[in-house]
C-alpha cells in the first residue's frame, strides 16, 4: 500500500470522527429537536433575563427565549420548551418567577393535574413572583429606618446638657447601651450576609442585591459606632479611660 493511500485513509477517518463528534454534540444539545414556544405575561420585567431556566419539579425543561414589552405595557416572556418536555405543560399549569435569597432566579412550572389537556401555544399565562430577596430587604428596611430615627434623636439630645440625659442612670447612657447592642447585632448580620455572598457565587443577580444590602448594613453600623463613640466621648470626657491595674 502506498504512503499516499495510508495518509488518505487517516485523513478521511479523522474527518469522519470529528464530524460524528460534532453531530453527537448537536443532537445532545437539542439542535435538531423542535421546540414549542409559550408566551407568559408579567406586569414587570424585573428579574427576568433571556436564557433563564424554566424548571419543573426541580428539573430544567426549557429556558426563556425572549422578552418583549407590548403596547399595553405588559411584559411578554417567550419560553421555549423542547418537544420531549412539552408534556409537563398543561392547560391548568401556572408559572412562578422564583427569586431565592441564594441561587439563580428561575421560572417554576407547577402542574397539579397531568391528565388535563396540553396548553395551547396561543394562551398567555401570567407569571406570579416569589421574591425572597425583596422580602428580606423589606423586613430589614423598617429596622434601618428606626435606627436612623433613633440616632437623630440622640444627636438632638446630645445638645441638651442635662443631668437627666447625662447622669449615670440618664437616658443617654441607656440609649448608648442599646445602640451598641444594635451595632453589634448589625455587625453579626453583616458577617452572615458575607457568608451568604460566599456561598452563592453562582447567583449573579441575587449577590448584587445582597451586596447592596451588605453595604447598607455596613453604613448603618459605621454610623451607629460613630454615634456611640461620640456619646462615649461626652460621657467619659472627665472619666479616665486609662487602663489601671485592678
Amino acid at each position, binding site marked *: 500500500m502506498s504512503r499516499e493511500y495510508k495518509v488518505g485513509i487517516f485523513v478521511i477517518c479523522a474527518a469522519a470522527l470529528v464530524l460524528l463528534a460534532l453531530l453527537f454534540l448537536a443532537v445532545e444539545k437539542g439542535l435538531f429537536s423542535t421546540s414549542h414556544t409559550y408566551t407568559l405575561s408579567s406586569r414587570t420585567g424585573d428579574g427576568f433575563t433571556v436564557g433563564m431556566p424554566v424548571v419543573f419539579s426541580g428539573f430544567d425543561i426549557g429556558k426563556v427565549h425572549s422578552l418583549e414589552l407590548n403596547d399595553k405595557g405588559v411584559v411578554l416572556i417567550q419560553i421555549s420548551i423542547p418537544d420531549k418536555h412539552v408534556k409537563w405543560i398543561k392547560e391548568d399549569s401556572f408559572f412562578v418567577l422564583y427569586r431565592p435569597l441564594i441561587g439563580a432566579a428561575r421560572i417554576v412550572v407547577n402542574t397539579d393535574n397531568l391528565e388535563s389537556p396540553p396548553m395551547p401555544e396561543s394562551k398567555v399565562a401570567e407569571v406570579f413572583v416569589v421574591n425572597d430577596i425583596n422580602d428580606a430587604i423589606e423586613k430589614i428596611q423598617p429596622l434601618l429606618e428606626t435606627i436612623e430615627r433613633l440616632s437623630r434623636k440622640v444627636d438632638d439630645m446630645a445638645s441638651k446638657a442635662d443631668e437627666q440625659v447625662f447622669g449615670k442612670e440618664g437616658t443617654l447612657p441607656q440609649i448608648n447601651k442599646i445602640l451598641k447592642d444594635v451595632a453589634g447585632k448589625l455587625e453579626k448580620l453583616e458577617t452572615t450576609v458575607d457568608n451568604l455572598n460566599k456561598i452563592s457565587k453562582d447567583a449573579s443577580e441575587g449577590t448584587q442585591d445582597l451586596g447592596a444590602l451588605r453595604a447598607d448594613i455596613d453604613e448603618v453600623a459605621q454610623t451607629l459606632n460613630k454615634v456611640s463613640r461620640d456619646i462615649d466621648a*461626652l460621657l467619659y470626657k472627665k472619666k479616665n479611660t486609662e487602663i489601671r*491595674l*485592678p
Partner: protein
Amino acid sequence: MKKFLITGMLMILCACATTSQIPEWQETSFRDIENYKTSFLTGKEGIAEAHFNRARGALATSNDLDLLAKAYLTKYALHASVLEEFDESEFLRIDRLQSVAANLSYYNFLKGNFAAVDESLLPDQYSKIIKSAREKNVAEARKEITAIDDPVSRLVACGVWIKHLSGDETILQTAINTAAENGWQKPLWAYLSQLEKYYLERGEIAKAAGIKERLELLKK
C-alpha cells in the same frame, strides 16, 4: 464692633467644638478590658478571651509595652482573684524588653513574693496589706481587705492571701460575699469550694457537707 462680636462668638463656638477626642485604640482597649473583667468573673470564659484578645490587639497598635503589660497583669490578677494559676510567660517577655518597676511590683504581689514588692509602687488599695502579709498578721489583713472599696481589688487581695498565705474563714467569707453581691459566679464557686476544703482540713465535717450541698444546689 459687630465684627468683633461675631469673631468672638465664632471663637467661643470653636472652643466648644473641640472636645478632646480620645484615640480609638484607647477607648476600645479600655472598654474591652472592662468587658473582659465582667465576662471572666461571670464565668463566660470564651467571651472573656475574645474581649481580652481584642483589647490586646488595640493596645498593640499603640506600641506601648507598659500598657500591654498592664493588660496581662489585669488578666493574671483576675486569675489570682479566683484562685487559679496563670501563665506569666507573656508578662515576663515584656518585662525582659522593657521593665517597669510598678508592674514588676504588682507581678510579685500576685505571685506572693511579698519581700520583692515595693509597696509604694502598688495601687493604693494594696499598700497596707503588704505589711500585714510580711508580718503574717491575719487580724490586720481581715480589716484591710474589708476596707478595699473596689470589689475586684478586694477579690484579688483575698485570692493572693488565700493562695500564698493562709486559709482564713473570715477572708473566705469576705470573698464569697463580694462575689455574691456582684453576681460573679466564677469567684463564688471557687471560694465556696475553698471554704469546703478549709472546713474539711479542720475536721468540721458537718459544715463542709453543708457547703458542698450548697454548691451542688447552686451549680445545678
